[in-house]
C-alpha cells in the first residue's frame, strides 16, 4: 500500500501520514513534499528556533572537524593506527591519557578520534552509494511511470521487507568482514528509500503543466529530468540523508560489534566496544567512551535531520 502514498501526495492535500520508517535511526520524512526551500536556508531557520537542532549541528561540526584533524589533534596519533604498548595496558583515565588506555596500551581518546574517521567514512560512502542508486532508479520510475515504475517499486518492496541490520548481517556473513563489506551491505538495504522518495517527487513534478508543456515542445526527456525533476528531489533527499546518517552509523557499529565489519587494528567504535566487552566491569573506560562516541554522533545526526525536516515541513505540524 505504501506506493499509493507516493503518488503525488503533495497535491493530495490531507493524507494519512505517509510514514516512512527508515532504518534503525528511522524517522519520518514527508514523502513527496515538493519544496523550493533549500536545506541551507532551512538549516538557518532551524537554528533560529530549535535548540536541539542547533546543538546537533554544532556537535556534528565538532565531530567532522575532529575526524579531519585526527592525525594532528590526537594525543598519540600512532595509537590510532598500528602502535601497541602492552606494558601500558589498561591505564585508567588521567593526565597522560584522558580516556585511559585499552588492553594493549593504546590511548583510547586517540582511537576514538580516528574512529570518527571510520564511522563518518562509512556513513558518507553508504549514503552516497544508496542515494546514487536510489535517486537514479527513482527518477526513472517516476518519470517513465507505467510498468517500469511498477517493477522498480515491487523490487523496493522486497528490499524493504528486510530490516536494514538483518540483510546487511546476512550479506556480511557470506562476504569477508571488512569496512568495504559493511558499506556495500548497508547500502544494499538503504537505496530503496531514496528510490521511493525520488519516484514520488518525479511523478508529481512530471504531472505538472510546465513539464507537460516542455514535453509537448519536444524537450528531450533527459533535459526535463535534469532541469525539473532532479532539482526538486534535492531537498527531500537531503533531509532523508541527514535523518538516515545516524541510523547508518548505528548499523555499521552493530555489524562491527558482531565481528562482521572492521577488524583490528582499524580504529572503529563498535569494534572497540566488542574488544573491551569483557573488561567492562573492571576497566569501565574501555567500553564507555567508544559507546558514548557512537551515541553522540548518531544523536547529532538525528536531531539535525529532525530539525531540518521540521523546518521544511510546509504545515509546520511538529513544531
Amino acid at each position, binding site marked *: 500500500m505504501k506506493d499509493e502514498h507516493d503518488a503525488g501526495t503533495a497535491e493530495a492535500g490531507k493524507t494519512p501520514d505517509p510514514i516512512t520508517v527508515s532504518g534503525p535511526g528511522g524517522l519520518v520524512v514527508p514523502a513527496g513534499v515538493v519544496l523550493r526551500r533549500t536545506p541551507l536556508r532551512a538549516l538557518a531557520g532551524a537554528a533560529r528556533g530549535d535548540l536541539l537542532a542547533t546543538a546537533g549541528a554544532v556537535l556534528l561540526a565538532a565531530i567532522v572537524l575532529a575526524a579531519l584533524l585526527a592525525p594532528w589533534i590526537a594525543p598519540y596519533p600512532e595509537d590510532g593506527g598500528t602502535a*601497541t604498548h602492552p*606494558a601500558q595496558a589498561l591505564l585508567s583515565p588521567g593526565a597522560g591519557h584522558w580516556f585511559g588506555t585499552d*588492553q*594493549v*596500551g593504546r590511548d583510547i581518546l586517540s582511537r576514538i578520534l580516528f574512529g570518527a574517521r571510520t564511522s563518518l567514512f562509512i556513513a558518507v560512502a553508504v549514503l552516497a552509494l544508496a542515494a546514487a542508486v536510489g535517486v537514479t532508479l527513482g527518477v526513472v520510475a517516476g518519470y517513465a511511470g507505467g510498468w517500469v515504475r511498477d517493477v522498480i517499486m515491487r523490487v523496493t518492496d522486497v528490499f524493504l521487507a528486510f530490516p536494514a541490520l538483518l540483510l546487511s548481517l546476512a550479506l556480511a556473513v557470506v562476504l569477508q568482514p571488512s569496512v568495504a563489506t559493511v558499506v556495500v551491505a548497508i547500502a544494499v538495504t538503504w537505496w530503496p528509500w531514496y528510490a521511493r522518495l525520488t519516484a514520488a517527487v518525479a511523478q508529481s513534478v512530471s504531472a505538472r503543466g510546465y513539464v507537460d508543456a516542455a514535453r509537448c515542445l519536444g524537450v528531450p526527456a533527459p533535459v526535463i529530468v535534469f532541469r525539473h525533476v532532479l532539482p526538486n528531489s534535492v531537498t527531500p533527499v537531503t533531509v532523508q540523508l541527514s535523518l538516515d546518517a545516524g541510523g547508518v552509523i548505528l548499523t555499521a557499529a552493530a555489524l562491527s560489534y558482531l565481528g562482521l565489519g572492521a577488524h*583490528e*587494528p582499524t580504529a572503529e567504535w563498535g569494534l572497540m566496544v566488542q574488544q573491551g566487552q*569483557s573488561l567492562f566491569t573492571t576497566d569501565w573506560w574501555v567500553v564507555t567512551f567508544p559507546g558514548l562516541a557512537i551515541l553522540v554522533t548518531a544523536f547529532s545526526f538525528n536531531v539535525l535531520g529532525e530539525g531540518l525536516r521540521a523546518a521544511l515541513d510546509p504545515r509546520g505540524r511538529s513544531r
Partner: protein
Amino acid sequence: MRRQRRLLAIGTAAALALVAACGGGQVRGSGDRSPGAAPSGAAGGGAVDTTFVYAPNLDVVTDWDPASSYSNEIIAMQNIYESLTKFNIQTQKVEPRLATAWTASGDAKKWTFTLRENVKFHTGKPLDAEAAKAAIERTKEEGAGAAYIWDSVKSIKAKDAKTLEFKLKYPAPLDLLASADFAAYIYDTTAAGSGDLKKWFAEGKDAGSGPYTVDTWQKGKEVELSLKAFDGYWGGWQGTKYKRVEFRVTPELTTAAQLVQRGEVGFAPRLNPQLFAQAEAQGAQTEQAASFQNLLALFNTQHGPLKDVRLRKAVQKAIDYDGLVAALKGAGAAASGLVPQGLFGHVPGRAQKQDLAGAEALLKEAGHGPGGKPLKLTMTYAQGDADQQLLATLLSSTLSKLNVTLEAKPLQWSTQWDQAKSGDTAKRQDIFVMYWYPDYADAYSWFVNVFRSSAKPSFNLTYLKDDKFDEAVDKLTELAAVDKDAALKSYADLQTRLIDELAVVAVPYVVNYQRVLAQGVSGYVDNPAYPNVVFVYDLTPGA
C-alpha cells in the same frame, strides 16, 4: 459492551484453567526428571538435588565417542567415563581408579592390572576384564585422537573377571599411559547391541562407568549438557555430593564472572586477569596454578602464502612475546620451546623475542613488506577467549605496520576445527591458534599429534609432511623407555627443527590457570593432567 467483556474474560479464564487441568503439553527438557523421585542413597536426606554448574565459554561436545573424543568435551567425559588409573599431579604418582593394583615385569613389557569389583556400566552391564579388553581394543582399532597411547600394546588378555594382562611390543610406562586424559576410557562396547555404536554415541548417549550419566544434551542451548548421578556408581552416594552437573555455555566472560559471584555458576575455568583479580578481591574462591597448557599458532605449510618458509619466519618474529606476557598480567608466562616447564622434553633458554627488523627483512626478501606487495593472511581463534584475542590484536597491529593484513576471526571451536580439516584446502586458514596440553605426563603428544604427518588432518594443522621428522617421532617412546638422555636430545632436536628450521609454529605463551569458584564449593583441586576438568564427584556442596 461491558458485560460482554466480562463474560469473555470469564470464558478465557475457564478455557485456560481447562487447558491446565487437562495436562497435555510437554515438559521442557527431555530427561527423566519427575520431581517426586527421591534421591537414592540420600544419607543427607530431605535435601533437593544439588546442581553443580560449570560455565565454559565454548560449546562442550564435539565427539561423544570415548574412543575418538579428543577435544573440549573432556570436561564432561571425565565425569562420565573412567580410566584404569589416574595421575595425581601433586604427588606425581599414578593412583588407582578402575584398577586397584597393577604390576609390571622387570623389563616393563608385561603388565597386569587388577580391576575393581562390583563396577557397573551405566548400561547395567558389569565392568569386567573382558569388557575392559573390548573397550581398549576398539579404541586402538579406531586409531583416532589419543589412541596412540596404546601403540605399545601387542596383546590383551582377560585372565579372569578381574585380571587384565597386557603384553607390550617395547617397554612402556603403561600405568601412566592408562591414566591419559583421552582414549583411556573404559566403556561398554555392547551398548548399542547390534546397532552402530558410533551412531549410538553420536545421539548423546553414554556407556561409561563414572559417577554421572548424560541427562539432556541440546547443542546450541545455553545449558548445552546436563548430567545426573548414576545411582549404581561403585563409589556410592554417601555424604553430601552434587547429584547433577550442568554445563552452561557462557560466551561472555563478564557474565560468567557475575554468575560465579552470585553463586548461579559453580566454576568458571577461565576469565581474564582483570576479572580474576576482581573476583579474588570480592571474596570468591580462586585458584592460580602453572599449567602444561600452551598456546600454539600453527602455520599452514601446504596452501596459501605461508607455504613460503620466509613468511612463516617473518610472522614468528612479528609476535610480541614479551608484550603479550605483560598484557596477560599473570595469566600467562613466557614459553621456552614447544614443551612447557615441568615435563620431560622441556628445553630451557629457548624463549623467543620479537624481531621487527628481522621480520621486515624476511618479508622484503619474499617481495612483501613496506613498499612491496601487500600480503593478506587469515587467522582463526576461539570465540570468547580474551587471551587469544590479545594475540590477535597485537599481531594484527604489528603485521599491519609491515604491510600485512591479518584477518583474525573468532569462531566456535567446532567451526574453527572443521574449517581447518576442510577437504577444500582453499577454505583452510593460514594461521590456526589453539591450546595444547599433554595426554599424560609427557611431551610426546605435541610431536605425534600436532606435527607428525597424517593422511587426513586432525590436529596436525600445519599440514606438515616431513619424513625425517616423522621417523624421529616414531622412535621417541621406545627411546624414552630405553635411553633417557638420547630421548631428551631427540626432543631438543625436534623442537629446533620445528621452530627454527621449518618455522611451522610459534608458541606465544604458556597458560597460567586462573580458576574461579563460587563460595561454598569445597574440595576442588586443580589437576593439570586433566586440563579444565572438575571432578564433580569429589566436591562437596556448601551449606
